[in-house]
């Protein structure tokens, strides 16, 4: 199967295979992406993050349904953590979205973090591009808001939504510190629980203290995703943010920065692999290590020599 060609023709299996190629770093992935790239740039990307148990998948399900009701097509990438001990993962987000499985206007793909350092964000970015080229209007990227790589993924969205729930207690403080400042929007899910108003006040206080505040003050929307309450209002704030960043050139700026980051990211990862391959496969690394062990040289000198040789 010519994956890129079939994908552009609307073949869902080709789309699925393209994402596999990206995820598994197959050699043909680069070629596929080259051919898909001209067809990207039309989709709007919504990032959704928050602590475990915040109900992100249910919320994603309801948001996707609302977009479908508006006649838009939706792609969803749901990222779950890979176990660092076994390398395995349970990707369970689809359970909340079973009602969307047979809707041809929706494509859902689950991804494990696979312990990749930094690589995850460019893999998800490429998967987003595949969905974009396929013709999805809205692409939702859902990640657990713990860990830098997840935060990186979500930062790459056009609009980033942070989902919180009342009554998470003290353990939320640590998470807050990591993800709270990245929100363009805040969503308080399960807001029928006690403590919803208190949480709104706390976020407001934090936003008041934020000295980097632009003239966009992130709105806070209370929803009960399981009851489908507040979803229309929530999407209203997404639309508002979209209009705002489209109007003041911020969207273009964000996308430019994203492209820039991507090039640097891929470049450094490729150069890294290239050098690694050269010195590991040739056995030179073992030699260096031995020399360093014997105190004949030191790591810094070795690195200098390798860099000079490879990059001249």
């Amino acid at each position, binding site marked *: 199967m010519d994956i890129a060609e079939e994908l552009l023709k609307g073949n869902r*299996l080709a789309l*699925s295979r393209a994402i596999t190629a990206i995820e598994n*770093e197959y050699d043909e992935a680069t070629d596929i992406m080259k051919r898909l790239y001209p067809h990207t740039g039309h989709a709007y990307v919504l990032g959704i993050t928050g602590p475990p148990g915040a109900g992100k998948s249910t919320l994603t399900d309801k948001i996707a349904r609302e977009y479908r009701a508006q006649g838009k097509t939706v792609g969803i990438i749901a990222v779950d953590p890979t*176990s660092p001990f076994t390398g*395995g*993962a349970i990707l*369970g987000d689809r*359970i909340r979205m079973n009602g969307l499985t047979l809707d041809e206007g929706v494509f*859902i793909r689950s991804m494990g973090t696979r312990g990749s350092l930094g690589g995850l964000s460019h893999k998800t970015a490429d998967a987003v591009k595949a969905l974009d080229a396929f013709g999805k209007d809205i692409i939702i990227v859902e990640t657990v808001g713990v860990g830098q790589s997840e935060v990186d993924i979500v930062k790459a969205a056009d609009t980033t939504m942070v989902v919180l729930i009342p009554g998470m207690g003290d353990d939320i403080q640590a998470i807050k510190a990591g993800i709270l400042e990245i929100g363009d929007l805040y969503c308080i899910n399960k807001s029928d629980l006690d403590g919803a108003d208190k949480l709104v006040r706390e976020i407001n206080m934090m936003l008041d203290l934020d000295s980097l505040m632009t003239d966009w003050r992130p709105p806070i929307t209370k929803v009960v995703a399981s009851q489908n309450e507040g979803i229309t209002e929530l999407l209203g704030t997404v639309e508002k943010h979209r209009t705002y960043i489209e109007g003041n050139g911020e969207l273009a700026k964000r996308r430019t920065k994203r492209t820039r980051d991507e090039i640097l990211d891929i470049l450094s990862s490729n150069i890294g692999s290239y050098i690694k391959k050269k010195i590991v496969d040739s056995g030179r690394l073992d030699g260096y290590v031995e020399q360093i062990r014997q105190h004949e040289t030191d790591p810094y000198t070795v690195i200098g020599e390798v860099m000079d040789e490879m990059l001249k």
Partner: protein
Amino acid sequence: MEKKIRVLVAKPGLDGHDRGAKVVARALRDAGFEVIYTGLRQTPEQIAEAALQEDVNVVAMSILSGAHGHLFPKVVDLIHKNGMNDVLIIGGGVIPEGDIPALKEAGVSEVFTPGTPTGDVVKFINEHVKL
């Protein structure tokens, strides 16, 4: 390259006995697989479509209600219709020995009955999966 075996664990039909499916899902995760668990009451159409979107290498189904003779072959058929002919399809649950040949004939590669160690399932997948 970072190939990973991806497995869809699904419960077709209406029975709610998911102890086995969940234990197997965990064991597969602990064996280093990526497991997509879809929960209860999945129709054959939903299972086949999820298998396509997730581009899985393996579909593992569990039924305890006796509807396997009807539902397993239907899932196999739909997965093949989607153009996914390399997917390893396996089943488990309360399935009489006498029904197994017909299920294999229909394209279910192996059927695991109660008492099977999860290690056997892992081993079977490792030996038969096509990546």
